[in-house]
């Protein structure tokens, strides 16, 4: 882990840099049975390094679709997704995999592999990159300590609480030193008290380690942890609030 020293950057400064993520005229349609659904209708968004964005909206507003597009898990019907200036529609499957290696995903349902214990889960993205066993182990243990699971290293998901599982997922998302983290309702499946603790951890990682966070939520109290809030409705950005 590289701990980037805290540098205060104003909103104006970051606007002038190359945006980390740039969405231009993004549209996504998919078929629900025989009915075409417009999940996104022309979304423009620019994310600067170090930002913490919450995307709010009711279900069906296109939040998850947007996140999948940013995470290179899906392809837009129209428009461009640029990550660090690269239009990802020009990339092939293998290059897309390379892009995903630099993105950390945290899902609502944790998406941990049941047979792997906490350490193995965190090691997995590193193993995918072909990093040696010893180094993997060291990094994984370090990260689990950061997320507060030092004494849960050998536990499997079934032996962990919801909050703990999500911490494992965060540690896993951080393992390959991502340029940004995508969090899809990270607190959706855990109780409110644990959710607050988890959000403090996420905010801290954003503050101290300058990791860019893009988080989906429909919970306004959770969204308050973010510096910038984007409201989505029927596939369009309807409101933007910055702290």
């Amino acid at each position: 882990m590289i701990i980037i020293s805290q540098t205060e950057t104003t909103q104006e400064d970051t606007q002038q840099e190359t945006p980390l993520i740039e969405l231009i005229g993004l549209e996504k349609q998919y078929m629900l049975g025989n009915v075409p659904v417009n999940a996104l209708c022309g979304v423009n968004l620019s994310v600067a390094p170090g930002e913490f964005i919450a995307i709010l909206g009711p279900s069906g507003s296109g939040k998850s679709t947007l996140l999948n597009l940013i995470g290179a898990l899906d392809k837009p019907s129209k428009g461009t997704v640029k990550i660090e200036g690269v239009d990802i529609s020009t990339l092939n499957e293998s290059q897309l995999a390379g892009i995903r290696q630099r993105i950390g995903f945290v899902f609502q349902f944790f998406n941990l592999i049941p047979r792997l214990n906490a350490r193995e889960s965190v090691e997995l993205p590193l193993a995918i990159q072909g990093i040696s066993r010893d180094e993997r182990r060291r990094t994984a243990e370090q990260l689990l300590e950061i997320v507060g699971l030092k004494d849960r290293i050998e536990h499997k998901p079934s032996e962990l609480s919801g909050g703990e599982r999500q911490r494992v997922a965060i540690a896993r998302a951080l393992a390959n030193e991502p340029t940004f983290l995508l969090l899809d309702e990270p607190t959706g499946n855990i109780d409110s008290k644990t959710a607050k603790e988890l959000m403090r951890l996420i905010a801290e990682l954003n503050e101290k380690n300058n990791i860019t966070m893009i988080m989906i939520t429909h919970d306004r109290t959770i969204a308050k942890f973010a510096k910038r809030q984007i409201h989505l409705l029927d596939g369009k950005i309807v409101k933007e609030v910055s702290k």
Partner: protein
Amino acid sequence: MKVVDILSFGFNAIKRKKVRNILAIMGVAIGIAAIISLSALGGGFQDMVDIQFQQGFSSDTLLITTRGIDFFLPESDFDMYINDTDLIEEIEHVEVAAAQIQRAGLVEIGNYSFQLNVLGIDYEKYAEIYPDTFAAENGSIPTVFDNETVVIGSGIYNPWDNGTITGFVGDNLNITYVTRNGTLIEVKSYNATIDAILGTIGGISIGGPTDSAVFIPLEQAEEFFETSIADIILVQLDTDDEEIIKQVAREIELLFSDQIQVVIPTALLASISAIISAIELFMAAVAMISLVVAGVGIMNIMLTTILERTREIGILKSLGMKNRAVLAIFLAESLIIGFLGSLTGIALGWTLAVALGEFGIGDFIAQSLSGTFVGQMTITPVISSSLILTSVLFAMSVSAIFGLYPAWRASRLKPVDALRYE
């Protein structure tokens, strides 16, 4: 992703679904066990036949018969007489020609009696043709003899190989021969004295001495069986040049106007070997079908596995795993199943082959071949490193072929769909 990580990831996944994967492994193991045991026994049988025939025949010996070894030709009514040997001996390159009269007789020795082949032979000529096998271990083959002499194979003296001795040199042996005379059944018998017991030869031969034969002088056979028709004439040549052997064989055939068959032992050996190989190949093909069935089993469980682990595939892809690596992971699981299956199969097949060899498949074959008691015949299974290597490779290829499609399907899943899969 490193190969070792791919393998350990796959192995880890296999361990989590023990019953299902053990069943798939057993499927492969059964196929491999069948291949290994059949090939090992086949190889052992081939070896045994080779050794027997090499002992029973030398390459410069010819065998003349009216009955024929060829199953497809009609039997000839033509007869050879025992003094036809004189004519044959006049042919160039022929050293010795020995006639043989062969009948099945009831042989009583000690408290035991067996239905055996009784061979009437010229001791001297026979010993000349078969110096290694027609040699006494106990007593001596008489050079000057009366009609009451008899030489026996070691299988008669020690039939069960367990120390039970039926009789020894100097003991009496009664030979009974039963024929039809018109509507009457005519029973003849006489007492002989054992003068010599041959050393162990082991197994079957055509024409040559065997462990379960009783040898009486030719003149005695002629008198006792009331015939001067020779069943077989054995010919010893002075050369093992294949061309000359063929030429002499042809000359003999012409001598008897093509009414007899001259068997060239090396050719016979070659054709028997070819038959064994063909049977072996057929058996192996049957075994291979079972391995293909196992392959279908692998494909089946891998498709199920992939369906169950769709979400996992989505996770792996979201973590940046390339399609190639996803393919490799699931292919590795099939290969691990194939590999473990082949190891289990080799152990299983080997045990089976040894057990069958040990507990009398040899005797079973020997008995079905001769129809009578021929003594002990143990097949020692032959397992070569190339057989092991081939079966492992074959099992791995089958798993690879049948594992490829499921793995390919896994690798083609769209990450977003895979993650959403419930």
